[in-house]
């Protein structure tokens, strides 16, 4: 039989725990769910603080999006960047992981180093790359000095090159992450599996295709999903590296939302675009993750 004091103590403990949990949930509701609902509400208005207007305009913002060239360009840029970086970073990650999947000290050092870009903030990464890629930057200086190029190449100064340069920098950052994920996945492959394969004479590309690749599948799922989500949200690297330029060619949808809301004061329209980005993020994340999960099972 429990004595009453124990029960009381236990009950107060229960209440304390419930209180902490409720506090956590409350914070989440106030600072994530509520803003989301406010944003949704605002997307049906013409809210513009500089014009002191805030009227309900139905779906007008959503119909306006259909004819918005800047939005279309930003979505194209964002999706190309997201998928391009995801593919490149994961391919590099698998390659690096296979290359570095050894236990000696030199490999451990290399593995440590490979993850460094992930540790630095996007602002630092972007500033360092800017000194490399800008018109008078270190890369152009080197290439011209070595007579590989006759004149500096506009790495950040033409729309296509800027897309490529941003892709390169983001891939560089994400590869550190994907490498570590794939290394972990590689190390989770039971050694016996490789031994069996060796006995059976399966090696080289065949071994990779038959054993390594399927065993990497769970790693692929997490790594691809996180790469995609990260790029869809990306703000700091683009802001510092190009600020969305030249001619808005590297303006991602995330940047466009911030510009609409904070510089153009079109809060209502910005909210509608935000809802679109949210929908696309959800769609991409769910379909790609879903497909990769199914693949894990079928492989």
């Amino acid at each position, binding site marked *: 039989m429990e004595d009453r004091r124990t029960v009381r103590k236990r009950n107060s403990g229960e209440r304390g725990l419930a209180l902490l949990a409720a506090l956590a949930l409350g914070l989440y509701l106030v600072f994530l769910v509520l803003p989301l609902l406010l944003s949704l509400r605002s997307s049906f208005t013409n809210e513009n603080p500089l014009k002191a207007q805030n009227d309900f305009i139905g779906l007008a913002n959503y119909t306006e999006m259909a004819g918005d060239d800047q939005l279309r360009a930003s979505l194209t840029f964002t999706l190309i960047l997201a998928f391009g970086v995801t593919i490149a970073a994961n391919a590099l990650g698998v390659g690096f992981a296979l290359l570095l999947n050894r236990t000696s000290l030199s490999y451990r050092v290399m593995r440590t180093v490979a993850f460094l870009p992930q540790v630095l903030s996007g602002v630092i990464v972007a500033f360092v790359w800017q000194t490399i890629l800008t*018109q008078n930057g270190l890369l152009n200086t080197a290439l011209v000095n070595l007579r590989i190029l006759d*004149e500096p*190449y506009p790495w950040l100064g*033409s729309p296509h090159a800027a897309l490529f340069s941003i892709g390169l920098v983001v891939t560089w950052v994400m590869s550190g992450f994907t490498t570590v994920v794939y290394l972990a996945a590689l190390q989770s492959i039971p050694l016996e599996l490789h031994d069996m394969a060796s006995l059976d004479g399966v090696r080289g590309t065949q071994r990779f295709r038959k054993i390594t690749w399927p065993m990497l599948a769970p790693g692929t799922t997490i790594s691809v999903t996180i790469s995609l989500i990260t790029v869809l949200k990306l703000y700091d690297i683009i802001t510092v590296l190009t600020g969305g330029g030249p001619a808005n060619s590297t303006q991602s949808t995330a940047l466009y939302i911030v510009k609409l809301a904070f*510089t153009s004061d079109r809060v209502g329209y910005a909210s509608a675009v935000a809802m679109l980005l949210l929908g696309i993020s959800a769609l991409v994340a769910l379909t790609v993750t879903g497909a990769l999960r199914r693949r894990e099972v079928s492989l």
Partner: protein
Amino acid sequence: MIRKPLLAAGVAGLLALTAACGSGDGGGKESGETALTYLVFETPSLDAKFWDDSITAATTQTPGVKINKIVAPSTDRDGYAKQLQQSGQFPDLLQSITPSNFVGAGLLKPYDKTWIDANFLLPSANSLKGEVYIPPTNSQIVPQVYYNKKLFTDAGITTAPKNWQEFLDACAKLKAKGINPIELGGADPFAASMPLVGIISADILGKNKNWLQDRYADKVKFADADMVTAVNKYRTLVTSGYFDKGALGVKYADSITRFTTGKSAMYPMGSWFLGSVPKDTADNFGSFPWPTDSGDVVVPFVGGGSMAISAKAKDTALAEKFGQAWSLNPANLKALIETDGAFPMIKGKTLEDYNVTVTKVFEESYAYVGQDNNKVSAIGWATNDDALPAGLNDAFYAAAQALFTKDDVAGELKKLDEAWKTAAQ
């Protein structure tokens, strides 16, 4: 149960710490001073020291004020002021903003007009619907074309171009000599638009001073034929290779050093560039107005000035006093003239009164302000009734950058008309 109070104490302590570091940074509340926030922007010539010195000077003349300086992250202080407004921290004083962006929402308080009339040469230079939000302490020409005399001589050019054809000839000669004709800091949107500002101001506003008013009244459009013809001149410059191919990757600050170190022969820029002319080689630089077809001089003119006052400032009267003290301080004007190429516009004073040392190219350029010539509002830069509607500057800059890489002049101009419609709604 010893852990629970410990945890509670820990959380409480952390919360207290948070609160403490929140309240610790307010500042300026001691000894009855009123703290005002002042948005400034830094450029290579208007550096942190200039702002700090000028603030200190004006503060001593305005008892009871304490200024908290906010520095905009780029020269686009309008964008940053809006961002601050949007996130609820609109500054009390705002240096060199475009008032038309903010008066619509009643965010600015005009200056006392008798004070304006009493102190400035062109009291209405910045007037917006009859009110003055920014004291017209100085003026600017945006753009003028600055050129490197030695590079001109090297290419066999003897005199500065006087009309568009001579300008094109000069470009061709320079290019033939392997000299980059025109410098462009295209990575910064405002700098990317400079040639376009010159072309439109000279060719369109030069012929119709009221073009911007007519545009507001929907009597003219960007897509009109004369505008398309004018803007096509910009495409001519681009396709002829008269800009560096990678100009859109050159930052504004880098474009200044590239021009002053002889990497390019000409540099269309606002007259603030005069402050960046290197002292030891100043005589090597000259200036001429953006050329027109006929050779008639058109001066794209902007009444520059000091700071606007937020209507919601903690103490608007005190803010106005600070703004007045700052605007009339000769030391500030001296610094602005010497480092920012400002053309002073204070009544009853000549250049000598400020005790400044200026370059020959400054005097040459300043002469256009005093002369009786065709002064028009520089498109995108005017802060008076000819200011573009809020948000259109960004569209204009984007068009300038876009036209560097693509040929669709009519399409880009049509986009500007659409942006105007959205902005003016």
